[in-house]
């Protein structure tokens, strides 16, 4: 597949602007009706899903060129958070705006039209296998002192993949450390790849570097196979999306993939984790895009589009619709609800139409101002619920919120679901 394969799709966009808003049925206020950070921050029509579909067509028709100087800004200043995709699919059964936008990125990357600030990141990645401008040798420092299986030499049922952010963000090390404690205490046969854990490639894929992604995906799948693991558990939503959706889609490698909150939900249900303390805390939960609407399982489909009744477009056989319905929304909420004392408030935009934290698809790395503005919008929304703490299940969201709060001089508390589980045990 390449951008050219989406020509029919981009012809069929009705340019209705649903992609700029949350699904209209869910609009509860003026302020939080907006669904797309990119268009809200940048004003021009081109910074929306439909705008990018128009641009894709203009590109395919050679009305514009990949080499137009302003194009990378338009194409890459977007988290690919997918709220547009959900809103579009409320009414459309035949459009995949997110897929088009991703392929538009691949097209630009193919031509070398990437934001120049990518260069150090990609150079370091190629050398050190991480997205954090850090050294590979330091990757397992978070696990120092934990008696964990080293899956480069030992075997285990479950491989815990913590991802680049949690491996190198010292302030967040408590998250994987908690995960390890919980898993070991529950008697799970778990290990890590340690220094040899590689970047999942998911963020690279969204940034447009699908080629790099493929290399990492191939590596990781091999490493898991060598370790004899049947299940991959990850504490990171970005990694979850990569493993759950992209790996099977791009490499046909089915693997049992669980986000740590799914695993905890199971353990709590089985009584393997019990809470001793009450946490009297008003919280609101932020759905990470990559765990929610984009964390839907990949269901393989091969088929064709055909027309019935004249011009009605259908897929034969039935094609799975990734409209956000099957993301992971309830597992983290169920874990939170099971903690005594916690009061959970919902933000206006939640589940499949949650507002993005601003960190995804390379925006934090490439355009920090836009990234923090997006986080700030979410923080405002969290405040509006009356919650004292903003809880998420993704280190990228948490880091972005922390930094944005820092910049604003705000003091809203930010937690990972695991933090609260740890505190209540």
């Amino acid at each position, binding site marked *: 597949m390449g951008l050219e394969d989406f020509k029919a799709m981009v012809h069929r966009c009705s340019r209705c602007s649903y992609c700029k808003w949350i699904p209209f049925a869910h609009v509860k206020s003026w302020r939080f009706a907006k669904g797309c950070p990119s268009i809200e921050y940048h004003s021009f029509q081109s910074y929306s899903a439909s705008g990018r579909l128009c641009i894709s067509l203009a590109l395919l028709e050679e009305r514009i060129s990949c080499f137009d100087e302003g194009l990378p800004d338009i194409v890459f200043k977007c988290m690919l958070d997918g709220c547009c995709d959900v809103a579009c699919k409320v009414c459309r059964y035949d459009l995949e705006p997110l897929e088009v936008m991703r392929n538009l990125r691949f097209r630009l990357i193919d031509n070398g039209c990437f934001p120049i600030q990518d260069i150090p990141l990609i150079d370091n990645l190629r050398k050190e296998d991480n997205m954090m401008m850090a050294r590979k040798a330091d990757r397992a420092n978070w696990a120092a002192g934990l008696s964990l299986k080293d899956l*480069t*030499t030992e075997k285990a049922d479950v491989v815990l993949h913590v991802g680049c952010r949690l491996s190198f963000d010292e302030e967040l090390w408590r998250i994987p450390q908690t995960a390890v404690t919980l898993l070991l205490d529950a008697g799970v046969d778990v290990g890590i790849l340690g220094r040899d854990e590689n970047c999942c490639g998911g963020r690279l894929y969204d940034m447009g570097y699908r080629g790099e992604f493929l290399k990492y995906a*191939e590596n990781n799948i*091999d490493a898991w*196979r*060598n370790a004899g693991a049947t299940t991959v558990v990850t504490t990171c939503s970005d990694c979850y999306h990569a493993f759950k959706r992209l790996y099977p889609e791009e490499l046909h490698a089915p693997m049992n993939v669980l986000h740590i909150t799914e695993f905890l939900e199971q353990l709590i249900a089985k009584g393997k984790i019990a809470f001793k303390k009450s946490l009297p805390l008003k919280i609101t939960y932020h759905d990470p895009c990559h765990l929610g609407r984009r964390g839907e399982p990949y269901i393989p489909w091969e088929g064709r589009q055909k027309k019935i009744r004249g011009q009605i477009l259908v897929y034969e056989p039935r094609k799975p619709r990734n409209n956000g319905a099957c993301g992971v929304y309830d597992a983290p909420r169920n874990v939170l609800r099971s903690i005594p004392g916690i009061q959970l408030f919902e933000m206006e935009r939640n589940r499949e139409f949650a507002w993005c934290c601003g960190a995804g698809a390379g925006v934090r790395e490439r355009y920090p101002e836009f990234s923090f503005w997006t986080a700030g919008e979410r923080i405002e929304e969290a405040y509006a619920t009356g919650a004292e703490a903003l809880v998420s299940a993704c280190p990228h969201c948490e880091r972005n919120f922390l930094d944005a709060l820092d910049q604003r001089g705000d003091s809203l508390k930010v937690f990972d679901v695991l933090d609260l589980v740890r505190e209540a045990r």
Partner: protein
Amino acid sequence: MNSYNGIMVYVEFGENGLLPITRQLLGCGRKIADELGEPLSAVIVGSKGIEEGSDAAQLGADTVYIVEHELLRQYRTETYVAALEQLVRQQRPTALLMGQTYVGRDLAPSLAFRLETIAVLDCIALEIDHASRVLLLTKPVCGGNAVATFTSMYYPQIITIRDKAMLPMEPSFGKNAHVVHFAVSLEPRSFKTRLIKKVKEEGEGLRLEEAAVIISGGRGIGGAEGFRQLHETAAILHAAVGGSRPACDNRGVAPNRQIGITGKIVSPDLYIAVGISGSIQQMSGCGQAKRIVAINKDPDAPIFKYADFGVVGDWKKVFPSFSAKLKELVS
């Protein structure tokens, strides 16, 4: 093909006489020449006495040109280009074949541009399109990810050919060639380069080109430290040690021990690849080995598509016991 006629082979010597590639060039040159109905010539360039011991007349060519000059004692691009330019301008061969050696890959392009033509380097196949009598020149490109076939309408066609890509000329083919001493005039002051030092750096063990067994290491071996183990094992097997490009860049082995598309092309009886993934760039250099044995921790590494025997595992763990066992078996 207007006034160009004949296939000319550039003869190269090593320490032990004629390089094997020269035989291969002659074999290929003879075949092409016969198909075109044109004569085959060979050219020997050097200083006085260069042809001695080579039995120039028995090379299998119809004519052998001997180009001797004091300034041609050692290979230098400028002098050799100047000398060959004079010969080729006079003889106007259809094609000049050279080996893809350190000399050939340096000499061919300069000479080609001097003659306002173009060279094609590192060919692995040479055929004639019978309808047009044009040479079809086939070579690997993109680091071996593809094979390209070129033609050119510019003569003489200057071609280098990869070692072992062609069969050597049958020794029985020898006949008495017409030996011509071609006088060149070289003006010392016109040259801008001077060889000031030549250092042999074969390092430990056998030369890659001559070894029946090669042990080769990849990026994972690390620097010289890691390669020491490979050298020790090589000593047991009378093997030569080589490395991939990353291994060379890591200073694990000397640059002239690089095996691959930009290094040496080898075809030993046994090639032991340690920690080598088997990328196409690497395999271009050793794909002709009779047997390949691989140790690599990645079960899907491409090397296992080439290898006869393989072990999946970290070389640091596999290799010492392998080496110890070998020692036991060989002694």
